[in-house]
């Protein structure tokens, strides 16, 4: 038979597998391009620089939250406290808007509170070996409860999302380039560089891939994990501030709806929840894909419920595909 043709076919299949396994970002970009194409076909003329700006602006906070999941998932963990912490950050900043220190004081208090929550989470996960899922869940109860208490205390003082947050969270340059990129681009560079070029980044992968090997090589995982959950909490707070600015709202449950999409973006982006595999580049594309997909479903007149069903299905399919290509050998 035509052996060469068969070999060829086999070759391409293998090439695709390799591609998805080693450089998932390439097929993901392809998927993103297809989605953009589809949305343009569904509603000709929709794709424009302005539209792109809107998509990017919406993706930025999601990508940051997904970054929290990516970093923690690399070590085999997860961070479910990002929603509570992010909401808390936006909320605290809004309530402190009339304080003597103004917006700056609000942001500093918010970030410090987030870092403290992250520190406690990190101690629980790193020192006491509490499962990250449970630890971050418990921490989110604590943060949410305290936010509620704070809410009752502060409700009299008058509150509002500060103008500066609204500006950075929702304004765009020339109707196209969202200003939240001013926060996002440096943060992204820091994370990408941190994962690829620093000793700390290496250790995140090492702990997730094989905790025993990491330990035998001299890694003290608790140090790495405490720092990790502080980083994650601070990132969550930054995302919360941006969301608060974008939506011009501050509530204790503001970020809740973004929690599961954030996990989804990380998974779609090729980060394994089992640890040791993935990166932030894929996660950003994952967040863009989810945002474009949302837009597409809106254009198609398929509102929220369908979006959820489609999101869920996509996660399962994509995760199954990753599992297939990475489990061989």
């Amino acid at each position, binding site marked *: 038979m035509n052996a060469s043709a068969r070999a060829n076919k086999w070759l391409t299949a293998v090439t695709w597998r390799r591609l998805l396994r080693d450089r998932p970002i390439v097929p993901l970009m392809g998927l993103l391009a297809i989605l953009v194409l589809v949305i343009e076909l569904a509603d000709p003329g929709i794709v424009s620089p302005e539209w792109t700006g809107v998509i990017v602006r919406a993706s930025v906070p999601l990508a940051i939250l997904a970054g929290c999941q990516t970093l923690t998932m690399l070590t085999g963990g*997860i961070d*479910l406290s990002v929603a509570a912490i992010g909401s808390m950050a936006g909320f605290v900043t809004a309530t402190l808007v009339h304080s003597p220190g103004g917006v700056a004081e609000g942001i500093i208090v918010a970030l410090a509170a987030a870092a403290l929550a992250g520190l406690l989470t990190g101690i*629980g996960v790193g020192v*006491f*070996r*509490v*499962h990250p*899922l*449970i*630890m971050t*869940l*418990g*921490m*989110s*109860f*604590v*943060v*949410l*409860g*305290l936010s*509620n*208490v704070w809410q*009752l205390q502060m409700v009299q003082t008058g509150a509002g999302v500060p103008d500066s947050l609204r500006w950075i969270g929702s304004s765009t340059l020339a109707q196209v380039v969202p200003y939240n990129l001013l926060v996002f681009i440096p943060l992204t560079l820091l994370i990408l560089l941190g994962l690829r070029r620093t000793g700390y980044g290496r250790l995140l992968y090492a702990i997730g891939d094989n905790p025993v090997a990491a330990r035998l090589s001299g890694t003290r995982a608790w140090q790495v994990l405490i720092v990790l959950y502080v980083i994650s909490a601070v990132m969550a707070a930054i995302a919360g501030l941006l969301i608060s600015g974008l939506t011009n709202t501050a509530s204790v449950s503001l970020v809740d709806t973004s929690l*599961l999409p954030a*996990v*989804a973006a990380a*998974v779609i982006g090729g980060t394994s*929840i*089992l640890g040791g595999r993935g990166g932030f580049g894929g996660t950003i594309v994952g967040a863009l894909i989810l945002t474009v997909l949302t837009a597409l479903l809106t254009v198609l007149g398929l509102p*929220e*419920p*369908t*979006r*959820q*069903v*489609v*999101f*869920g*299905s*996509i*996660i*399962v399919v994509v*995760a*199954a595909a990753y*599992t297939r290509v990475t*489990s061989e050998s």
Partner: protein
Amino acid sequence: MSAVTAPVGAPPANPARTVMSWAQRSSWAIGLVGLLAILLVFTKIIQPSYGVAGIQGLGISILPLGFAAVAQAVVVIAGGIDLSIGSMMALTSVIAATLMDGQSAEFGLAVVAGVLVLGLVLGAINGALVVVTRVPDIVVTLAMSFVWAGFALLVRAAPGGAASPWLMNLVIGPFGNPWIPKAAIVLVIVVAVIWIPIARSRMGLSLYAVGSNQLAAFRSGVPIGRTKIVAYALTGLFAAVGGLALTASTSIGTPVPGPYTLESVAAVVLGGVSLAGGRGGVFGPVVAVMVLQIIQNDMTFLSFDPNFALVAQGVILIGVLILGSVLESRRARR
């Protein structure tokens, strides 16, 4: 050849030992019941007017979360986890409320049966996806929580519908003695009727076996995949009961998932079920739910901000796990 110094043989069997070992195994649940009793007494002291109304309120308020905790316990015992319980409850709840609205009692009964079967199917789908795709259960069930919640919103975009009156009567009010809430009786009976026969059967053993040591279970001839699917299906079933309880206690169906998924995980952990699988039971989590609810009530009575209850819940959850971890490492060192 090699000298093995480990003691061989085992202590002789005797009934006292058997009771002891049962007590040892159930020590966590027994402790929880003790804690529950202490809390009730404490509540009576700080709030002398606490009585029938309080108990009835407690009964009705724990019902949905009680079933959610049982649902989570089943799958965690089998070594999995299900983050879609809240969504399955929402879906089954809206379906029940929508179908029952304005229909006869008989039709309502059929709806209940249908919803229970639906729960089994939803759970089985979760389980089949976990087994077939080999994607970690957290990811699969997280994703499915979107799917089921989406379907719930498709069924009914806003809270509404109605529960059959008999269904509401089933859970609301006292059972004979005004101190005994019907809801508690329903919770215990439903869980007992479904769970005890299963736990006693070979299937129950298989659930524990798969959660305890999958390789040993496989070698003992337990069909791993099938057992996992059954575990998820049972979780779906209990989630459906929870959905019905939600409809019965609120008289409507709400398409937006409540906080039940994550709170069920908390209740399971507090209820003495090991997240590593294979250890624990379904009644511990139910008692844990009661304990958490009473703590919340007490904080109100003590005129704490009710939101501290949430903080307390988080702190208790973390505290229990840290305590467990410290005890474990001390045992390992010895």
